[in-house]
């Protein structure tokens, strides 16, 4: 499925595999060139390991893997199911520094929200991305240039800007 981030379409260097035995309670997404046996996974370089989680995963079961995986893909079963936003936010708050992917039929209008919640990239299915050319994603990402919420990365923050304006006046 097509993958994109801030720079536009990007090459997907990950391969989805499906393992009979999952490492943890969620299914493993992929990593290239490994055989499909659980114990070997732990010996892989962290940069080669990633996994896919459902959006009702228990966050605490994932945390121990944060240092060992380079990618977490969060499932968005429908674009209207917003649990993934909070999940991304929690993964970041709990220390995940790798790449975070939103997988599912998310739309261009959600891209800025996903970025603000800690996601780096999106992987919508063809049926969605065919209707939404690159220009739409680029435009949607810039539609709102400043937001009100503190502590969410992304567009500039209005509260900080107000404070800066106050400081200048003082």
């Amino acid at each position, binding site marked *: 499925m097509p993958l994109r981030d801030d720079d536009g379409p990007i090459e997907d260097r990950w391969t989805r595999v499906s393992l009979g035995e999952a490492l943890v309670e969620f299914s493993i997404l992929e990593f290239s060139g490994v055989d499909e046996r659980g114990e070997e996974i732990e010996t892989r370089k962290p940069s080669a390991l990633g996994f896919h989680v459902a959006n009702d995963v228990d966050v605490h079961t994932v945390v121990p893997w944060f240092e060992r995986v380079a990618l977490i893909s969060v499932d968005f079963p429908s674009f209207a199911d917003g649990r993934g936003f909070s999940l991304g936010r929690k993964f970041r708050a709990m220390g995940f520094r790798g790449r975070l992917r939103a997988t599912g039929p998310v739309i261009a209008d959600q891209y800025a929200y996903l970025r603000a919640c800690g996601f780096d990239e999106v992987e919508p299915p063809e049926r969605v991305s065919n209707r939404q050319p690159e220009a739409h994603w680029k435009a949607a990402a810039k*539609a709102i240039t400043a937001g009100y919420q503190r502590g969410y990365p992304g567009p500039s923050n209005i509260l900080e800007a107000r404070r800066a304006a106050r400081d200048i006046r003082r």
Partner: protein
Amino acid sequence: MYRYDEFDAAFVRERSAQFRDQVQRRLTGALTEEEFRPLRLMNGLYLQLHAYMLRLAIPYGAMRGEQMRHLAMIAERYDRGYGHFTTRQNIQFNWPKLKDVPDILDHLADVEMHAIQSSGNCIRNTTSDPYAGAAPDEIEDPRITGEMIRQWSSLHPEFMFLGRKFKIAVSATEEDRAAIKVHDIGIQIVRNEAGEAGYKVLVGGGLGRTPMIGKVLREFLPKADLLPYLEATLRVYNLFGRRDNKYKARIKILVHKLGIEEYAARVEEEFASLDKSPELDADEYRRIAAYFALPAFKAAAEESVLLERMQREDAGFAAWVKRNVHPHRQPGYAIATISLKPIGGAPGDATAEQMRLMAAVAEAHSLDELRVTHEQNIVLPHVRKDELYLVWSKLKSQGLDAPNKGMVTDIIACPGLDYCNLATARSIPVAQNIAETFADPAMQEKIGPLSIKISGCINACGHHHIGHIGILGLDKAGVESYQITLGGESTETAAIGERVGPGFSYGEVTGAIETLIETYLDQRETGETFLQTYRRVGLTAFKETLYAAA
């Protein structure tokens, strides 16, 4: 009142441009109707029975005259010359065209208004006490908190795709005029033992199919912690609320399932992990509070000779003062309610002409302020007592002088079958029939305070669960059937009404209400209101007379 700074203004302009672009992409097919639907809803645009309906946000129900006048212009230019004030302290227009909506939003932005999050599965427009800033007993102006929440919740990246709609109400008085116990989150401004102002936070109230009264989530929350605490509360809901069944997706269901202790524990755990920077929020609170500084009231005696005299001379005016005027914090001032419930009218409707009159009266006599109430009326919060007679005379010229606030004819009704495609029964005509039955002012005076609320389907937009008498219109094998509940209440003693028995047909329901009211008049002890009598004698007494004939 709050005024936009350059950042608010830019934000609303960008949001309007973004919606224009979304409409374009819908028209070209880049967005499917399924994808467009939540995007238009979170900008207040519904597809109704006959046409689109646009609901605008009126944050905490507060407006200036200029804004009301703009609504009149929109009603004339894009609708059929009227607008409908709703139980969400908002206004809706029932006939706009999709292609015009972006232009309407631009017009709104001209007067610091928008339609952001007036619908959809996101944090809705925050509601509050229509007497804010004028009520004698308030701890602090709740609009400051309302504005903090408006900004914080606007396009919140994490909470735009919740399981279901999410409503927050703020009140700052013991007497609750904001119905905080039936909101997803209810916030009451209180003082702790040290005398500091802070928040009591309720969660899990709501109406709809499964009505519930909110439970206490936090007895006292320091003011500067509000936004992170809301973030924690919403995150727990967003992660754990049900998504498989939209009728079980509200936060009240989750709170009920987990129990309030477990819900609170999860919120506190989340809250503890958040980065709080309270100074920034406190700075922002102070900045917003400056806009809500007390207005320049004129010094005046508490009693007005003119007011007293005109009440003696004009019985119509005296009746209006008795019912529609409320005490003010400032000597010599009063809070006046404009009833949008003239006998025979559609509850909450106002014509463009009426809107312009209300705007002019607010500018001349109410320090340029108006409020929309959840009872679908309009409040003039700061009227000098000396000017009340003049205000009333002006309102009368446009039929805005109904002296029935809080009375049997001050009926709340949702749009029902006349406009709403979810409706199972009519509600506006039922309200009209009941109002006509009790039109006689002497009769209304005899009955005293009584709230009747009518919904045209189980979604309960007419808040029937919290009417002293609630009426729910259902469809029984193709025939309208009206179910009656008794004893509901929205204030600090909030309660969900109890079902009295089998439903009534459209033709029977007005008679059933008459029987209930006669029963009350028979049973009441001196000075008792309908609700007090009901609470004393209970459901059975009413049930017996209601079904005796059958």
